[in-house]
């Protein structure tokens, strides 16, 4: 009726609506009760005759209410029904109900069943026989049975979790129609093109012939589906599909883990397209837990996507042993590793400047830890790392000069100190190529590119079992990648650096593939058996099958697999089918997911255009008798009318008079006033606290002071060290030495201020065990052998300071006692013990062309109180071919350490009038001046780095610019 699914069981009663105008007229002339007003001076006007006594009219809204009341009663009497059942005319032959039962049919399944039910029951009432054919039955014969059994069978039917091909069922239907040429066909379609719906429809028409009646009940609500989940670096992306015909515009996706606990939810919205993307932006650990994603309130197998370990992303932490230098990322060993891992793992690097990066990285629970040229793992980190590997973590190490110089437990093979250089000026070898990968190697199958060359590597000590640990080797058979199982975990060592200094492997695509294989092992190593993993990867292509564990039913619920489900090969990549229903296959530890839709699938609505079909929509709901609602409405209107009449007649005033209105309003006022006082009073109280008089604030400060004093470093005093660039020295505890350091650095600071652009603040004594060192570019440390060694924590702080770009100048002051060939002096031994826990780079005596000798003055060596001692500094990379062109050489960063024995500070030290404080050996003014110049050079080197070595090219650069 009027396009609405509304019908009346007694439509004649609606004629009573014609009486409404009469009612309107009657109501118009019946006025409401007048107001009653007592009026003492009534006597004065009692004799007056009303001039005009037309009764007041009933207000329009009251009239409307009463008319609505009458209309509601009339409509209720007419027996309105919402969604009336369609009336079907009787046919002659039997009725065949063809039922789509693929996953899209799950959306309105109960409606489909009840529609089929109605068809069978109606046929039975008309004395016709009926039969049901489900599409998934395929070529099975269709047989009549009595209606009760047919309906029972209908009730037991469930949608299938896959998309059956309808054409398979067409043969049986043709056979049935040949036997019953007069049959009526009712096809309850799911409205999806997949499964060849158009071909099936054409086949039905052809089989039914010209006179047969083919009725199609098309789905009124089309399904949504999920496909193609993808775990990208930042989020889990899922494609949400719909048919072009429409469907829900937005909705919610929920993600569950393997136990069915909700992990996250997200929203999706279609904007005109048939496909949209939903993102789960969750931490990687949570995303890896997701095993099932489904559309909320969309109960079908297609609205569920299952995820197995192929979708997991592993977290990899990369720690580099090299001094952090963010301005030159290409030189950082971690750069290539990070880039190579990024496509398939979540790569994290510890914050720059963190004290113990290995511990910090392990605290993030990575699946794999990459150590790029970290020489020593010591202290608490060592235990943590051991635990990490025992628990199944993978440690991937890269060699480098630091690793070559030291050994610890975390290498798969024993390493020779030093390593070898191939193709250098002193070696007769050419750079080596990679040998093809062995069959046992996890890298088997990757092509060992000819372009890869290795110029330097660390060497493994030959020992028994070395070939078994070797995953990759050079052409001459020396191991290139070695690995060993330890506990549940794995240690892998690349015998080259992670950057390009030793080989060009990190630049190749092979590097990415190798890392991918290692990363894949990091996931399974936690659960897999101990030594088979390496070979299992190599034998991946043998045909192993896994049995179904949990499968989806048509409604998208995981349950026990049906008996018809068959195992799948382990590398199965298709969508679910009758034999392989979608679900999880294999053991719980290594599940393989089979989905209803393939990642590239699209949903299309069935196209029946131009076909001679009787299309009807699937009736969305049961009929609803609206009569009680109309009666209820009429009753409410009646009550409202009564109330309105009483109100108009002034009947409510009597009620109001007796209510203690004043008391109530007074109470409300009081409450409001109290609230206002509360609100205005509270801020005032706060304000008072803020603007306390100074005296009371002073007391407050005093009370809190002791705690702050304890925290503040005693030697830093009130001057915050970050306010100015300043030199610092380590307070040794020996008063004489400290005095000399203070005076020496003071003189040096004055010299710097007088001669250079730098105006340093006053030097400061620091205690490395307590004070923050990060503010100082250079710290001078005179070694006093009689002092106790600093604690391991302090050593870690020192090491950290050096890694962050600070320079430590250790002064052993033993040039006079130290003779070549003698036993080391106590100071030297003390320093060696101190540096045992620090990553010290390779050192050399300051070469004549080192940039530190050129940064401000041109110097030959660094002298102090003595001139005979040598000064050590981080070794420069090997000289280039053309040393004549480069008067100064520099590494890519500032040396973190300078070791001298010439007692620099004492040579610098002078009082406030410039008079030297200590005698020099041999002792000339020239020597004192050279000592100051050496100090200036050291400071300028610390602050400017290799700038000066580039500066020598300025003439060439200017010439080039001139052209």
């Amino acid at each position, binding site marked *: 009726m009027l396009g609405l699914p509304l019908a009346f069981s007694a439509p004649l009663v609606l004629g009573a609506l014609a009486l409404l105008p009469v009612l309107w007229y009657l109501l118009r002339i019946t006025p409401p009760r007048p107001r009653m007003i*007592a009026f003492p001076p009534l006597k004065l006007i009692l004799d007056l005759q009303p001039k005009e006594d037309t009764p007041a009219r009933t207000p329009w809204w009251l009239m409307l209410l009463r008319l609505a009341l009458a209309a509601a009663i009339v409509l209720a009497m007419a027996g309105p029904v919402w969604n009336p059942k369609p009336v079907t005319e009787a046919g002659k032959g039997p009725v065949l109900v063809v039922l789509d039962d693929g996953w899209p049919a799950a959306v309105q399944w109960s409606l489909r069943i009840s529609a089929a039910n109605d068809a069978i029951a109606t046929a039975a009432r008309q004395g016709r026989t009926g039969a049901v054919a489900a599409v998934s039955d395929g070529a099975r014969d269709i047989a009549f049975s009595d209606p009760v059994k047919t309906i029972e069978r209908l009730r037991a039917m469930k949608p299938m979790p896959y998309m059956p091909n309808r054409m398979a069922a067409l043969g049986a239907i043709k056979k049935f129609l040949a036997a019953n040429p007069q049959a009526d066909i009712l096809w309850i379609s799911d409205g999806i093109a997949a499964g060849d719906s158009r071909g099936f429809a054409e086949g039905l028409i052809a089989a039914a012939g010209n006179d047969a009646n083919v009725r199609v009940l098309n789905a009124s609500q089309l399904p949504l589906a999920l496909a193609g989940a993808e775990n990208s670096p930042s989020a889990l992306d899922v494609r949400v599909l719909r048919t072009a015909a429409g469907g829900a515009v937005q909705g919610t996706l929920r993600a569950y883990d393997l136990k069915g606990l909700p992990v996250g939810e997200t929203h999706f919205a279609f904007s005109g397209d048939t496909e949209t993307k939903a993102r789960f932006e969750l931490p990687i650990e949570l995303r890896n837990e997701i095993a099932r994603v489904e559309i909320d309130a969309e109960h079908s197998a297609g609205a569920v996507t299952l995820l197995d370990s192929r979708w997991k992303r592993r977290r990899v932490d990369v720690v580099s042993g090299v001094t952090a230098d963010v301005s030159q990322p290409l030189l950082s060993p971690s750069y290539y590793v990070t880039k190579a891992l990024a496509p398939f793992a979540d790569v994290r690097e510890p914050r720059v400047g963190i004290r113990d990066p290995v511990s910090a990285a392990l605290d993030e629970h990575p699946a794999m830890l990459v150590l790029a040229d970290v020489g020593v793992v010591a202290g608490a980190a060592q235990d943590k790392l051991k635990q990490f590997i025992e628990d199944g973590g993978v440690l991937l190490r890269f060699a480098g000069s630091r690793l070559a110089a030291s050994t610890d437990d975390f290498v798969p093979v024993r390493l020779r100190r030093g390593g070898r250089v191939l193709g250098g000026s002193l070696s007769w070898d050419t750079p080596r190529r990679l040998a093809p990968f062995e069959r046992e190697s996890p890298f088997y199958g990757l092509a060992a590119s000819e372009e890869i060359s290795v110029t330097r590597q660390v060497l493994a000590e030959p020992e028994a079992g070395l070939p078994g640990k070797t995953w990759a080797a050079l052409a001459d058979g020396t191991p290139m990648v070695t690995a060993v199982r330890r506990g549940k975990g794995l240690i892998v060592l690349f015998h080259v650096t992670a950057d390009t200094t030793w080989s060009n492997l990190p630049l190749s695509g092979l590097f990415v593939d190798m890392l991918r294989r290692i990363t894949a092992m990091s996931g399974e190593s936690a659960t897999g058996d101990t030594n088979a993993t390496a070979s299992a990867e190599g034998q991946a292509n043998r045909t192993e099958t896994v049995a179904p564990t949990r499968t989806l039913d048509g409604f998208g619920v995981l349950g026990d697999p049906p008996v018809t489900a068959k195992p799948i090969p382990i590398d199965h990549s298709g969508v679910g089918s009758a034999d392989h229903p979608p679900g999880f296959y294999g053991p719980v530890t290594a599940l393989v997911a089979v989905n209803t839709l393939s990642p590239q699938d699209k949903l299309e609505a069935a196209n029946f255009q131009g076909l001679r079909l009787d299309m009807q929509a699937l009736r969305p709901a049961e009929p609803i008798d609206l009569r009680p609602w109309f009666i209820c409405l009429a009753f409410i209107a009646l009550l409202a009318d009564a109330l309105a009449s009483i109100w108009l007649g002034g009947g409510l005033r009597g009620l109001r008079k007796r209510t203690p209105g004043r008391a109530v309003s007074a109470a409300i006022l009081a409450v409001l006033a109290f609230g206002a006082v509360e609100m205005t009073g509270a801020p005032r109280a706060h304000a008072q606290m803020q603007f306390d008089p100074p005296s009371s604030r002073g007391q407050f400060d005093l009370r809190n002071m002791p705690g702050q004093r304890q925290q503040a470093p005693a030697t830093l005093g009130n001057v915050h060290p970050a306010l100015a660039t300043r030199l610092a020295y380590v307070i040794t505890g020996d008063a004489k030495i400290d005095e000399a350091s203070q005076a020496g650095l003071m003189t040096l600071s004055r010299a710097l201020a007088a001669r250079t652009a730098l105006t340093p603040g006053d030097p400061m004594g620091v205690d490395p065990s307590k004070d923050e060192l990060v503010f100082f570019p250079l710290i001078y440390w005179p070694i006093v052998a009689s002092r106790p060694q600093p604690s391991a924590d302090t050593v870690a702080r020192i090491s950290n300071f050096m890694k962050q770009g600070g320079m430590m100048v250790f002064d052993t002051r033993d040039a006079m006692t130290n003779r070549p060939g003698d036993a080391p002096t106590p100071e030297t031994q003390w320093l060696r013990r101190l540096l045992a826990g620090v990553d010290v780079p390779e050192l050399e005596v300051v070469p004549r062309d080192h940039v530190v000798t050129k940064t401000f003055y041109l110097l030959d060596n660094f002298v102090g109180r003595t001139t005979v001692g040598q000064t050590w500094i981080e070794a420069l990379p090997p000289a280039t071919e053309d040393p004549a062109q480069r008067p100064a050489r520099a590494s890519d960063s500032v040396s973190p350490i300078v070791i001298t024995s010439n007692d620099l500070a004492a040579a610098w030290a002078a009082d406030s009038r410039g008079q030297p404080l200590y005698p020099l050996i041999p002792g000339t003014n020239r020597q004192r001046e050279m000592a100051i110049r050496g100090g200036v050079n050291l400071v300028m080197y610390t602050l400017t780095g290799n700038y000066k070595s580039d500066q020598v090219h300025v003439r060439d650069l200017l010439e080039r610019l001139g052209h």
Partner: protein
Amino acid sequence: MVDARLLDEDESGVQASHSQGALDIARRLPSLVVAAKQVAATVMHGVHGRRRAGVGETFWQFRPFVWGEPTTRIDWRRSARDDRVYVREREWEAAHTVWIWMDRSPSMNYVSSLAAQAKVDRALVLGMAAADLLVRGGERVGIPGLMRAVATRNIVDRFAENMIEEARRKAYVPAELPPGDTLAARTQAVLIGDFLSEPAEIERTVHGMAARGAQGHLVMIADPVEETFPFSGHTEFLDVDSSARLRVGEAQSFKAEYISRLAKHRDAVRAVCASRGWTFAIHRTDRPASEALLALRMRIEAEGGGLLQGSVA
């Protein structure tokens, strides 16, 4: 829309039924008494009476003896100190009698939403306040037909007691007008009510009371609604002391006629007063009571020629 109603039985002033007893009254009366005293106090500070010499007890002044006066008036003690002869004058003190009558008829039990107080409340407050004021000025005050004139400090309580006493009587019917008994000469009457009775009845009462030359003051209490007639629409008016009722379709059409009739009625009452030299004032219950009391006091004072002199002292 303006709302108006009649007071319930238990709401109306000193009128108490037998069943309700004195408790209900006591609940209401103290507030009236206090209100009356407060209003009186305000007025005493508002206007200072001129002090005059006259018959009285307290010393007023010495003045030189004027030839022809009785020599008995000479104050010899004062005159002995001087060559002149002085007369001691006393402050004029004369105890007058004022009769105060308050209308407590049903038509007074009326209050509209525009008014501050019911008419009867206002009448009682006004009357008792006037009594308090007068007694403190040295006058004697009574209620005609109910209480003889006395000059006691607790005159307000006495008024209340007597009125409760009267209201407790079985056959008590509050009268619309005071009993028309003739008052003595040189007494004053203060009549407070709404005076909606026929002008002829009012005339009879006033003439009766003033037959021997008593002066009087009428204060007509009116609810704002009674003056402005702010009604409209379909309305049925009920009389308060009779069963008369008037149903009108359009109440607003009666407004002009009602107001002219009310004015005519008031003119008639005013004429009645004027014919005996009485004063007439109209007081609306949306105005403060002290305003009416002040006006009343001024008139009593003018009438009595310093009746309230010394009330400040």
